[in-house]
């Protein structure tokens, strides 16, 4: 007998690519890829993939690197290396300012050029997210998801993330205090994402979804921006999405994160893998199903790269959700992550197919 079935997120999750170890040789083909995108950061691992790809003989027609407005001097240290690796991949290398208002417009113009130049359709693009800030990753994905391209995301995982267990246990209170440097310092600006404004036409109460970081001030600045009274009394209107590290030896970071951000057991919280973007998608989908009818949902993704990727796909599915970014005054380049442990990739393939899968969620079907 025929039944009406509503497609849910778990029904399509199997269609989405998973994260897998990356082998640079698989990126090398007879014809060059159409575009390689990466970011110039102060962490040495911004060079990891460009170097590996160059050594493996990978070629692209064009490459572009994103430039940040913060830590300019620290980032410049890696510029010569990055440019030399990229120039070995392609002679057409150009920078793109990542922190300007019109970034997405310029990225669209650049992708229009790639689309017009591509000899094979859909064009193939590789995006290295190793040192992309979450706000940049969200803005990039917003634009990339508008195009019919084949997308592969690659990522180099740091060998050492700050704080280390030893550093944290030596001076736990240092990480709870706002006035010490830690991974980053201060908050320069809090602003709604230009590209993810959400739909807030009706005056519903706010509901805030936060991925905290190891510095509480950025998350708290977001709460203060949305509604300062939520700092004193969240009243079940703030959900904390706490990152569960994928390596067992890092599991202490979950408790440390709670302590640093003052997240008590009584507060609304969810545990989300730092490494599996599909887990982020599932948790966000659940929260959205519960709250979207009665609240205006705002998110601030300060967690891991993969959590930000999951957030980007979720925002594609639910444009009614607003994203707020909280930018630090500066990152502490001297105390950030070190080295590179493993390299990973998510080969999304055709974004047309990815969009179709995501669009499928919530649709009704008649099945026999």
């Amino acid at each position, binding site marked *: 007998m025929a039944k009406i079935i509503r497609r849910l997120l778990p029904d399509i999750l199997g269609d989405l690519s998973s994260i897998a170890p990356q082998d640079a040789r698989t990126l090398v083909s007879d014809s060059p890829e159409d575009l390689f995108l990466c970011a110039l950061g102060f962490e040495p691992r911004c060079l990891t993939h460009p170097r590996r790809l160059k050594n493996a003989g990978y070629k692209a027609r064009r490459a572009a690197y994103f430039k940040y407005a913060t830590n300019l001097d620290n980032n410049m240290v890696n510029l010569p290396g990055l440019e030399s690796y990229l120039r070995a991949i392609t002679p057409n290398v150009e920078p793109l300012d990542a922190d300007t*208002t019109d970034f997405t417009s310029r990225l669209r113009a650049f992708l229009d050029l790639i689309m017009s130049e591509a000899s094979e359709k859909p064009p193939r693009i590789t995006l290295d997210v190793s040192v992309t800030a979450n706000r940049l990753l969200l803005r990039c994905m917003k634009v990339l998801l508008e195009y019919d391209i084949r997308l592969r995301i690659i990522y180099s995982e740091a060998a050492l993330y700050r704080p280390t267990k030893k550093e944290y246990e030596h001076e736990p209170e240092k990480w709870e205090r706002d006035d010490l440097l830690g991974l980053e310092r*201060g*908050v*320069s*600006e809090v602003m709604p994402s230009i590209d993810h404004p959400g739909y807030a036409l009706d005056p519903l109460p706010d509901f805030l979804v936060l991925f905290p970081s190891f510095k509480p*001030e950025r998350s708290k600045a977001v709460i*203060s921006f949305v509604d300062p009274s939520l*700092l004193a009394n969240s009243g079940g209107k703030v959900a904390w999405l706490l990152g569960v590290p994928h390596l067992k030896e890092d599991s202490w970071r979950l408790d440390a994160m709670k302590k640093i951000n003052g997240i008590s057991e009584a507060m609304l919280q969810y545990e989300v893998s730092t490494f599996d973007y599909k887990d982020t998608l599932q948790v966000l989908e659940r929260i959205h199903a519960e709250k979207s009818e009665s609240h205006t949902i705002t998110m601030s993704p300060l967690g891991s790269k993969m959590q930000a990727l999951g957030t980007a796909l979720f925002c594609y599915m639910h444009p009614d959700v607003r994203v707020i970014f909280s930018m630090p005054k500066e990152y502490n380049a001297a105390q950030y992550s070190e080295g590179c442990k493993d390299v990973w990739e998510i080969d999304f393939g055709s974004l047309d197919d990815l969009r179709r899968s995501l669009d499928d969620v919530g649709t009704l079907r008649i099945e026999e």
Partner: protein
Amino acid sequence: MFRWLSLKAHLHKSEVEIDSFRIAGFYISCSSDLQNRLGWIRTEALAKRFRREIVHYFNLLLAREVVQTLSIIAARADREIFWGFGLAQEEDVCRFILDSLGTTSRPRIQGVSRLVQVAEAIEGEMFSTHGQMLRGLNLTSCTSEAFLGDLSSLLARQVLYFGKKRITFLVDDFSSHRLPLDVQAILNNVIWERRPSHIFKLSSEKYGSKLTDTLGATVDVSREMVEIDCGREFIALDDSDQVERARAFAVELLDNRLKAAGYRGTADTLIGPSRWPHSSLGRALAEKQDGRALDQFHGLDCIAQVCSGDVSTLLLVYRRIFERGAVTKESTSCVSMAIQHDAIVSVSRELFEAIKHHVPCGPEMYSVVAAFGTLVRNILQHGRWLKKGNTTTPSQCPRIELDQKDGAIVEALTEGQQQLARELIRRAIFIEMEPGLSRHGNVTTLRWHLRRVYLPAFSAALSKNDAVKRPVDWLKYLLTDPRGACDMVWKCWPKKASESEGPTLFDL
């Protein structure tokens, strides 16, 4: 408050109740949709480039609210008799809006109200406008700066109710941190249009709104604009009549909510009056003996004084008292004074701590309040008492007074100090009172009053009978080194006991 003034919030009520309103309010908030959609337009050049689209989007947002309200009115049985809003009027309004959008030929759907379809057409146009702006494109056709005036004129002419009640567009949080000043200047061309059929009411942080339009024209403050400073109105509670009104407001607010939620208790039975020896909180705090239970902050008189015009603070205090006092629907007994004290102080501390997280200048503002609050508390506790007739009373001075001998004080501040000073006022951490006349000559005095909700965190009293009176340079010192500046005041403040070599302010 603005949301409550909107007509939509009251459309479940009877004709008699609705007829008692003086205005017909339509509400939008800048902290939600407008901020999200227009907040990125941060330069004059961008604002000028999208001037027509900004006006168009604003028009559409308010038109949507009007149509949604009309849609609810249309579902009432008395739509024609009481409101004068029949099908003919509905058709006129819909046609006007669709004509303005250039979508008159939009196909109609059977079974869906005409007004709902118009609301959807407006939303479609809003999203399309925003999308075009993000792509850096201008629209070929936009509604004009006169659109809302024409809409309100039409409503006042065609719909009986709007002919009797002044249409009032309520724009909440029209502040610079929600809407950039350059966007505000463009919207001012719409807001300041003078029409007999409507007015605008704007709420804004202090100094948060721009008072010129794109041509540099200003409003006539006495004739075209009335400014109401809620913080200042509440702080001016020095006369007993005002204190009584604030108490009545606090009681009514709670009683209304308790009644609506079906509670048996009332403000008087659950919280009760404040009971202090000599009827003075300041004296109760100053005479507090070590080891005695802390219960000075309690009662409705105290709670009413904690509020500086911010209703959410009152509600937060009530909520915390009820949580800690385990008040239920059936409760009728009074929450103990100690629990009330504990709840009020905890709210005060939390709001004080929250200052740190404001952007910009959060940590700097926190330092100023921490130092000044400590000074106020120490003056209360250790300062010499003031003569009041035949008796004496402890000094309570949560206010700073500075003589403006050489013009406006802000001109003497550096750029960084000006920003900090502006944020302290904008965030209502200090309430700027009307300038007073100095005792030191015919010069005006700048007066800043610490927002009262922060005072319990320092065990400081809520009233004011004295002030920290210093020259302008002291403000610069306070903004640069708050502890040093407050310690300087403390050192020369007359004390109860002689302390020629006493501890510094922060050692006490």
